[in-house]
């Protein structure tokens, strides 16, 4: 279990078994290894620091040294703390989409997986909840973004459709038109896909905030790449500042990245991770599972 950290901690704790107490040196050496392991898993530095402090407090009180395998004992403390921080008690991925037409808004950096995830969520709502879902692309920038969403709507199921494309219309106006269409068409859920934007593009961030103000979404999901590195903190913080975010989606969890961004973004925003993207196809959407993500971060 947890090869990466096991190896690191093993070398520190091997031979310690049976000794009376951990020395300060043992403890700080172990904490340093944990720090490096987390950084290598792409957990952002400020979050690593906070986490290591937490583990330190927990480890001090425990009788690590008397256990048969002190290294494993420390790893268990780390693992439990990770699961805790990732949101162990959260309910299974649930979207608040009960009052029709409920609006879900997608936001995030360029290429993070918003449009694909829009299709995936639509399919999930259609398959499991028998919901009638309307998809609308507010992306007037990326070439063929609207066509991409229209194709995905077709693939997502009988009860999923996309808003007809009107060239030249501005995002805010498309949002209004979509809300109107969702009401008239008797849709349960309207999902607004937005263009990708960097968090420091003031004009684009203001546009996103305006869309949220117009549409009054019951869910605003920040879609982020699970392969994200240290920038996860900055991106999450800035999007959280400007938009009424309600949850996170981590895509590309089917990669071999360690997924530290999940911990970073969760820690910075305090928001639940609602889904994990695990493939390019529309069925590649999993409910969030803190244990699985914690295991991944530790290099399982």
């Amino acid at each position, binding site marked *: 279990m947890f090869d990466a950290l096991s190896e690191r901690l093993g070398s520190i704790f091997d031979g310690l078994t049976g000794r009376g107490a951990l020395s300060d040196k043992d403890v700080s050496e172990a904490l340093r290894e944990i720090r490096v392991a987390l950084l290598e898993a792409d957990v952002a*530095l400020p979050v690593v620091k906070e986490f290591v402090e937490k583990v330190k407090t927990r480890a001090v009180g425990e009788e690590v040294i008397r256990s048969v395998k002190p290294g494993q004992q420390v790893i268990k403390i780390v693992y439990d703390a990770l699961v805790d921080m990732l949101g162990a008690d959260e309910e299974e991925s649930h979207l608040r989409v009960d009052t029709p037409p409920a609006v879900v808004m997608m936001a995030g950096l360029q290429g993070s997986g918003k449009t694909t995830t829009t299709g995936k969520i639509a399919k999930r709502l259609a398959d499991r909840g028998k919901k009638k879902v309307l998809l609308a692309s507010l992306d007037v920038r990326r070439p063929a973004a609207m066509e991409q969403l229209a194709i995905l709507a077709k693939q997502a199921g009988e009860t999923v459709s996309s808003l007809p494309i009107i060239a030249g219309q501005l995002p805010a106006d498309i949002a209004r038109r979509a809300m109107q269409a969702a009401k008239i068409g008797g849709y349960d859920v309207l999902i607004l896909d937005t263009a990708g934007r960097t968090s420091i593009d003031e004009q684009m961030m203001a546009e996103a905030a305006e869309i949220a103000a117009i549409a009054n979404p019951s869910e605003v999901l920040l879609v982020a790449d699970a392969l*994200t590195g*240290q920038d996860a903190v*900055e991106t999450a913080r800035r999007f959280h500042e400007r938009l009424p975010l309600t949850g996170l989606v981590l895509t590309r969890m089917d990669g071999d990245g360690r997924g530290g961004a999940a911990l970073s973004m969760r820690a910075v925003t305090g928001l639940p991770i609602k889904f994990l993207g695990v493939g390019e196809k529309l069925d590649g959407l999993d409910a969030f599972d803190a244990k699985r993500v914690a295991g991944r971060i530790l290099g399982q």
Partner: protein
Amino acid sequence: LGRRKLDEDTLEELQDLLITSDMGTRVAARVTKGLAKGRFDKEISGDEIRLALAEEIEEILKPREKVVDFSDGPRPRIVLFVGVNGSGKTTTIGKIASKLKDQGAKALLVAGDTFRAAAVEQLKVWGARADIPVLAKDTGADAAGLVYEAVERAKAQDLDLVLVDTAGRLQNKAELMSELAKVVRVVRKIDPDAPHDVILVLDATVGQNALSQVEAFRHTAGVTGLVMTKLDGTAKGGVLVAIAEAYDLPIHFIGIGEKAEDLRPFSAEAFAKALVGIKAP
């Protein structure tokens, strides 16, 4: 930052600064060690520290700085763009294509992403902007077959250049990676020297996984050069320094936006300075 002593604490702070750029713990340690040489325990100003750090980083990156003019060289020059999903392959091709228009090169774009919804339409928009033809088949078509056709056509029509888009794929997906290997194999059948360039497109927001991307795509597709996109955001792209240390791969361009003109030749000096927070003059 005022003047301060370059002691252990300061060095640790600097190392942390580098880590937050995605440089990785090991390379960050090496860079700060280099900085400390001859300066340890001496008084130094914040500006001096930044400049010295930038110099250390530039030294690592400089050998990798290599501007490339795809419209030059072998004819037809076959250039393949590869990388994980959403890294910016199609957009980068669009940007390069837009430049070619000004240079008057006879080029062809190939919509080798026959998988993702509207990938073909996306490339066609870029082709129309650059006034360069796009060879495409329907979604679901065999990518290798399409690329074969493209290279044959380039030979027959005596084109200068073929820019081939490919579907995004995660490097741990064996099946998708072997499809990419097949594309390369098929091109080689027509011309043993082709593809002349295999450009791995990396997203600046990606962390340590970029190293594994380089390793896998190099192994599968024989990557010859790198492009890093999305440096207009808050991500610093420090993992490029770790890559430059580990691999002898030229870095050609950086992407700094979504528009045709948002592509710059890679400059080791500018990149190093931006990474440590020295603003461009």
